[in-house]
């Protein structure tokens, strides 16, 4: 479970105030979030002469995760176990105040309807305006009127479908007619939407130009002088996503590293390869204002294998938790 933390290259230190909540879904598909940085120490810049030049150039990547919004469905064994536990709890439980009142009322009714009922003997006390059964009925009614939000958010899709329609009974001529249709397409299929698969945690992938080819990988950016690796990761995220997307970084320390050597043709004296440090971040509730600059994908951990290269995948697999 513990992710390998090879190198803590960051030098600055900032204290965070994080507030996470998992209450009702509300408007967005993400948990409500607020981060207040109290103190941000300025990064200590080191002179280039001091540092020994290394043939490896540094990059920072961000592993942006959207946490699950709704609870996952139980597997059959879990359902059976849950039912059994509920039954056991019910059988072991004591009668509550409301149930006691129900029993008392039922008893009173049966006494009133008995043949030898004397109303004067009955100790009336305060006459209840509402019987307990009526209270229960009002609560049942209110529960029926409550409609929870749908578990799968759909998008109405419009399209045309060609249909062979026969005109009239006598005429044998059939002609293809285009009929308009609108259906609730499953958002789970739409890989670029952050609202898909609300019960699982998703990771953001971006298609970036690496060397000569375009690859699907976690958004990364090259490290520049005078900034911390975490700031590099934040820059990588900003460059790939839209402006309105807010993310909270979980710490200054990276959670994983991947190093690769450049192809022999591109290798020079100064650069042999690149080291990519991964930083974890959680997507905060924010409606994206503009469209993202690069093609984005939100994928589950099980779907990562289709998009990432095998060597990269083994390193990334280690720190993405599939809980």
């Amino acid at each position, binding site marked *: 479970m513990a992710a390998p933390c090879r190198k803590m290259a960051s030098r600055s230190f900032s204290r965070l105030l994080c*507030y996470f909540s998992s209450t009702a879904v509300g408007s967005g598909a993400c948990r409500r979030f607020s981060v207040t940085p109290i103190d941000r120490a300025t990064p200590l810049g080191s002179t280039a002469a001091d540092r020994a030049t290394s043939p490896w150039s540094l990059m920072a990547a961000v592993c942006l995760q959207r*946490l699950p919004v709704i609870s996952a469905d139980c597997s059959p064994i879990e359902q059976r176990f849950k039912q059994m536990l509920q039954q056991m709890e019910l059988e072991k439980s004591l009668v509550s105040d409301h149930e006691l009142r129900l029993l008392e009322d039922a008893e009173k009714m049966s006494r009133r309807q008995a043949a030898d009922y004397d109303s004067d003997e009955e100790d009336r006390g305060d006459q209840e305006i509402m019987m307990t059964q009526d209270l229960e009925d009002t609560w049942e009614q209110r529960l029926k009127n409550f409609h929870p939000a749908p578990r799968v958010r759909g998008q109405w899709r419009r399209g045309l479908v060609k249909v062979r329609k026969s005109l009239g009974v006598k005429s044998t001529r059939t002609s293809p007619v285009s009929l308009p249709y609108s259906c609730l397409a499953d958002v789970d299929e739409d890989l670029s939407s952050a609202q898909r698969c609300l019960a699982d945690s998703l990771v953001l992938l971006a298609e970036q130009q690496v060397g000569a080819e375009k690859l699907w990988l976690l958004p990364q950016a090259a490290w520049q002088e005078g900034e911390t690796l975490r700031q590099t990761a934040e820059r990588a995220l900003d460059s790939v996503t839209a402006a309105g997307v807010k993310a909270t970084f979980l*710490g200054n*320390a990276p959670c994983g590293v991947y190093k690769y050597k450049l192809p022999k043709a591109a290798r020079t004296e100064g650069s042999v390869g690149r080291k990519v440090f991964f930083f974890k971040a959680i997507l905060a509730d924010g409606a994206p204002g503009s469209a993202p600059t690069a093609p984005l994908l939100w994928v589950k951990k099980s779907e990562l294998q289709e998009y990432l290269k095998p060597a990269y995948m083994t390193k990334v697999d280690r720190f993405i938790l599939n*809980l």
Partner: protein
Amino acid sequence: MNHILRKLQVTFPQQASILNLSLCRATPSIQHPMWSTASINERQYRDMPTHGIGRWRHLLPKQASKKKKVKNQVKDLVSATDTAYGTLNVKVSGYDMTVVEHYSQYIHNLCNRLNIKVAESYALPTKSTEVLLMQEQGNKTFVDAVLKTHQRVVQLSSLNASLCPVFMDVILKNQPEGVQLSVQEHTEADYLLRFKARPELDGLIAQIYQ
């Protein structure tokens, strides 16, 4: 010592039938050379093979001393260093007490497993919220429900900065529904929140300074 003597005395009468009487009469006078010097009331020396044979109290587990430990010691605030966060408060709050308590227990166990030192684990007072609904026919409001917010705090003395992202990720992914999680630094004000207000003392202090 006595029973050995008795055994010798018993065996000799048996042998008396085989041996002649003169031998029988002579044997009671023979005594063990060691026994002649020592009497029954003297303790045996440490060289004695059976020295301390009846000792058993040293085999019992050590009991804690009966001195009273000072309870509710005020723990010092750990300040943040370059590689670790200082004293942090992981506050878990929600309406359902069982869920909140189980989640705080889960966080505590996770810290034990990850070798994160847990300074304290306490509960803040429960806050009751009354939900008042407007009546359909009139302007009067009536009490519809009473919601109780339970809060549990797990105080970590120090959190390694490299372990922080892993820890946060795990507790976020395991956060149950209807539970709010908040991670903050521990301050004096947070510590003072735990104490009950003492109105008489405050009144007296106000009187003195007026």
